[in-house]
């Protein structure tokens, strides 16, 4: 059971996990590992104070890319469930931007798949951030950091 969501307004990642588990994993006793990642907006980036941000995306392609990323990760690791949510629109510091959760029998698959999905999303899903700085300027974030995995 996978769930991919785009949120136009603010969302609470922890309540989203609780809802997902209540709706889909109630009484399920087969998963031993849940790895999650939440990306949150900071009030600084590349040395500058950031006051807000607009997250633009390409809806049909976003959906297709995210589905493909999740599908491929399920082929690669013995994953039982994936929950993936991403915020778009006007975002304030401390707002959650992205949530990736993976349920699996064992911890290695959960950790690996969660990080893999996050890196793939960062480098393939068509989202773009435009930051408004404290200085009054605004700028497009030019590039995501390289893949952070060792391999």
């Amino acid at each position, binding site marked *: 059971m996978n769930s991919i969501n785009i949120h136009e307004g603010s969302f609470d990642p922890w309540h989203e996990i609780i809802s997902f588990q209540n709706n889909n994993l109630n009484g399920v006793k087969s998963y031993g590992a849940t790895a999650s990642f939440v990306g949150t907006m900071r009030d600084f980036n590349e040395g500058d104070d950031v006051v807000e941000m607009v*997250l*633009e995306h390409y809806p*049909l*392609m976003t959906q297709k890319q995210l589905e493909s990323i999740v599908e491929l990760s399920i082929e690669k690791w013995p994953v039982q469930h994936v929950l993936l949510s991403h915020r778009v629109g006007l975002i304030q510091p401390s707002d959650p931007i992205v949530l990736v959760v993976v349920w699996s029998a064992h911890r290695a698959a959960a950790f690996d798949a969660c990080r893999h999905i996050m890196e793939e*999303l960062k480098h393939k899903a068509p*989202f*773009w*951030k435009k930051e408004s700085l404290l200085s009054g300027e605004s700028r*497009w974030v030019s590039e*995501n950091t390289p893949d952070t995995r060792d391999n």
Partner: protein
Amino acid sequence: MKAVRVLYFASLRELVGKSEDSFAIEVPITGESLWCILNKGIDLPESSLLAINHEYADLQTNIHENDEVAFFPPVTGG
């Protein structure tokens, strides 16, 4: 002349001053040629990406009738 839909996102949308072109053109045509015809005098920034029907494509890939084409800068989500 065949219908093609072209979308622009983020900094490329701002660069060309429009979010969409929708019109008829001789196909097949490469992504690179399509940009040149639609945005005369504006160079496509070097790191730009192309998607055809929501899949990444090379700038030399041919575009066909009814394709949805998108030009955009490197992605920065997550």
